[in-house]
């Protein structure tokens, strides 16, 4: 039976790292290769022993596909490709290819330089890994090899995030990565066509939530900024150069304009050029509004937002500063933080997740005293605010996506099965499809029912049509007889005669004969006539003939009468029929065995 196997790698119930193995049509594909951000040891890497117990993965994987640049989806990629060993193609979208190495290098710096870890990938490994990347465009079918093809769809969520459609023969799978179904200020909503994959694989981390609206999150952000500014405090917003920063800048600009606020807003140097560069390159990945704005002006030419100079940090009075890097682990944002941390009127707003070991992570865990270089301690007196702006699909979003793609089966990863029985029930009820929820490390086998398209010979088609009945209808299957010829990659259905001709074989004819004893005092020809009359009355609707050569024909079945030499009354009925008339022949013989009706 054809089937697709899916295994989310990991152990136990841990969430926070994506790495899924799919076996489809004889191909093995790895979807995402994330790092678990909560562990400090080898548990942070996926367990590749599922692929092979020892050695390199190249022979066991046909390709690796990365959905987007978040570390829990690509953080273990250099480890996998350079330290475990994989030389095959790694597919990701253009923006992901450009941004991944930056995040990986940042991450490597924090882990190795700051925390002094040793079993970790090097800068060179990141470079070598990225050399294996084959970039994808949206909606463009890419042939990985003769049989495997993939296509990327827009996922929203972050710049360059994609959902991937994977097809081998007539079996297919769609993997969503992280996605969202509601557009925001700088990215659109995920979209996919009615591709009807055999399986739709989706994360279920947020499947049991109902998300608070974007506007309320923004409101909270504006409220906090406004409150700090009003009391004369300074607000630091550490950001990664791309994505969220633009969105928050636009938000503040609109708010400042509306409220006629005077406090200065700055973004740190280095942010502008990089962000502009990337946005120019990937303009197709942002939404309509940004595109229009960008065409009209430079991404960072705001009325109220200006470029930062490090000396401004000492200026008195309120101000807002966007500075990199995002986790306060180095650079300008950390410098500013050190200056402002001691004043309780000030505020730092962390708009995203911070990796363990960074200052960002420590203050988000409530630490109020930090150990800095040279044994100096820093008292954290300013207000710390953690705000999550990341766009994820919730329960409603998952249902919307299923409605869009119309998969035959649903598979949810990274959730607790006991906590998702209701969602499973909802999906099964509304869409009448099975919903699987494998635990990490568990393999799910989904049976598929692929339709195999086959050419049919005209003769055979004509014969089938001649049998009457309705025209071919894909919703009403009909069975028919024929011979399937498989030549190279073509499949053709022909009639048996044609097949025999092509193969140069003679058709064998199968004929059955049956002898039925009968007691009848009449002559042979009279007995035959009696049989004829009997059958004619019994088998109405059939062609029954009494031929001059002394036989009765029922359709193409021959009936003869002969008698024994010793006893003229002991008749032998000879029935003969071909294989095609087996049913009727058997019926006739059983009828005649019962004898003839009395005259």
């Amino acid at each position, binding site marked *: 039976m054809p089937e697709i196997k899916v295994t989310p790698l990991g152990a136990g119930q841990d969430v926070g790292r994506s790495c899924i193995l799919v076996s489809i049509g004889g191909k093995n594909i790895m979807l995402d290769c994330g790092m678990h951000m909560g562990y400090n040891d080898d548990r942070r890497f996926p367990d590749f022993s599922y692929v092979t117990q020892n050695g390199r993965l190249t022979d066991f994987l046909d390709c690796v596909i990365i959905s987007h640049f978040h570390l829990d989806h690509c953080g273990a990629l250099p480890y996998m490709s350079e330290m475990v060993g994989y030389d095959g193609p790694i597919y990701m979208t253009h923006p992901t290819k450009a941004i991944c190495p930056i995040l990986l290098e940042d991450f490597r710096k924090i882990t190795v330089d700051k925390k002094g870890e040793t079993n970790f990938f090097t800068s060179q490994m990141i470079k070598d890994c990225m050399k294996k990347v084959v970039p994808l465009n949206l909606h463009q079918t890419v042939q990985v090899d003769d049989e495997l093809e993939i296509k990327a769809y827009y996922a929203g969520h972050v710049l360059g995030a994609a959902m991937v459609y994977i097809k081998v023969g007539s079996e297919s799978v769609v993997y969503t990565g992280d996605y969202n179904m509601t557009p925001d200020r700088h990215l659109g909503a995920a979209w996919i066509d009615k591709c009807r994959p055999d399986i739709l694989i989706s994360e279920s981390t947020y499947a049991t939530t109902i998300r608070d609206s974007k506007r309320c999150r923004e409101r909270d952000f504006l409220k906090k900024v406004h409150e700090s500014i009003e009391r004369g405090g300074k607000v630091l917003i550490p950001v990664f150069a791309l994505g969220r920063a633009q969105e928050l800048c636009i938000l503040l600009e609109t708010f400042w304009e509306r409220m006629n606020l005077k406090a200065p807003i700055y973004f740190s140097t280095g942010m502008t050029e990089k962000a502009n560069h990337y946005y120019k390159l990937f303009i197709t990945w942002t939404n309509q509004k940004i595109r229009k704005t960008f065409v009209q002006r430079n991404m960072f030419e705001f009325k109220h937002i200006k470029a930062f100079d490090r000396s401004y940090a000492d200026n008195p009075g309120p101000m807002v500063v966007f500075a990199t890097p995002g986790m306060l682990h180095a650079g300008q944002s950390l410098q500013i933080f050190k200056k402002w941390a001691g004043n309780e009127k000030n505020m730092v707003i962390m708009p995203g997740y911070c990796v363990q070991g960074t200052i960002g992570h420590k203050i988000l865990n409530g630490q109020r005293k930090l150990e800095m270089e040279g044994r100096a301690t820093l008292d954290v007196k300013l207000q710390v605010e953690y705000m999550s702006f990341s766009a994820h699909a919730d329960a409603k979003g998952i249902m919307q996506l299923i409605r869009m793609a119309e998969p035959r089966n649903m598979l949810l990863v990274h959730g607790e099965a006991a906590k998702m029985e209701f*969602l499973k029930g909802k999906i099964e009820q509304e869409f009448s499809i099975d919903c699987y929820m494998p635990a990490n490390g568990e393999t799910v086998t989904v049976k598929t029912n692929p339709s195999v398209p086959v050419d049919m010979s005209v003769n055979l088609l004509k014969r089938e049509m001649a049998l009457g009945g309705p025209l071919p209808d894909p919703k009403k299957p009909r069975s028919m007889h024929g011979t399937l010829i498989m030549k190279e990659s073509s499949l053709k259905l022909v009639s048996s005669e044609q097949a025999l001709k092509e193969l140069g074989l003679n058709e064998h004819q199968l004929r059955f004969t049956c002898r039925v004893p009968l007691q009848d005092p009449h002559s042979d020809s009279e007995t035959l006539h009696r049989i004829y009359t009997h059958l004619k009355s019994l088998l109405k609707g059939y062609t029954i003939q009494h031929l001059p050569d002394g036989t009765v024909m029922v359709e193409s079945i021959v009936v003869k009468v002969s008698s024994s030499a010793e006893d003229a009354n002991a008749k032998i009925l000879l029935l003969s029929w071909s294989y095609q008339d087996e049913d009727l022949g058997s019926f006739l013989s059983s009828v005649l065995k019962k004898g003839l009706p009395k005259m």
Partner: protein
Amino acid sequence: MESSEFEDALDEWFIESLTAYKDLHVYQLEHPTQVIEWTSGKTVCVAGYGSSKNQLLELRLPLKLFAEENKGLCAERDFKLLHGGFSEGPVGCLRHVPASRLIVTNDGQGTDLQVWDLGGDDSDVIRRTGTVKGRESAPQRGSRIAASPSSSPQVLHGAESSSVQLTHLTSGQSLYKLETDTSDPLNSLQFTSDAVFLAGCSNGRIYMADTRVSAAPQMSPPPASSGQSAVWWTDATADPQQASCRVVRLSSSGHAVVSDLRKLGEAVCQAQLDIHCSSDNVTVSWAPRRNYISVSGFSGVVEIYDTCDWRMELRRVRPLFQHRGHEVSCRQADGCDPVCITAHVWHPERPQTLLSTATDGSVHVWDWVEPDSKGPESKSEPSL
């Protein structure tokens, strides 16, 4: 409304909300609900009212709302779906049985009740466990339900004053029946103590009875009002700290009357609210431990009134606070009906927190800020 105009109106309200609310959360359910019922200090139940299959959901409010110290470090703003189940028909009324994991529902059409087990940590499915039969044979409308505060699981239910009964959930036994002379359709059933309850009829009558005694109930006629064919809604305070229990009655013409439970026939104070249309899903509710009354169901707005401003003479009053979030979020450009509030509740402990839901499936959780003391404009106008 142009798309950009709509966006601006929305932004305007959000800008105002910066000072008007301490916390604000806006959610969108897949299907609208007519019921919100607390199942604990942090969880509520909602349920759909479509004609065929509907979902019952138990939701946990966002953790950020409850974080006191270190509120800034909590980024959790979402509802968590704790348990869910399916109902064969619509849910018109839903009550939680105190100190249990049971809820009781009615479909708003018949008088039978469905009993459900919300479930614990081991499963997230809400399961149907039984049925309670109602008294009427041919009801015009669904039953109202009140869960008894007593320790054993009992519910008071009925669609009309003549068919109210108290049923023990486990045994199915009928423990008490309200006997009245007339059969008035009910708009509310409410316990004011362990055994004393009020049956609020839609014609404005209130019956007060004690489930422990078989004496005839006390009946209080509707307040004298200009609108003869008015429909009335009732709510009583359940405040253990108050010296006495107060009852408010609101008519469909906007006439609100406050009485003391011990003297229902007399008005303590009254007011004329600005209400124009009639509705099915009206909620009038006392704030826990305060003199505020909230009203919803006539439009897309929830209004809060301070009854301390109300007098013996009937005067027009203006609300202390209006939650316009649902109304502002509704896209009138689409040609759909304007949104209408279907239910709202106060949080039992947090004095400023309310939940409200509307016909478009929106659910808001809001923590409103008391407006500043009255300025030059007074909140009430000269007597009528």
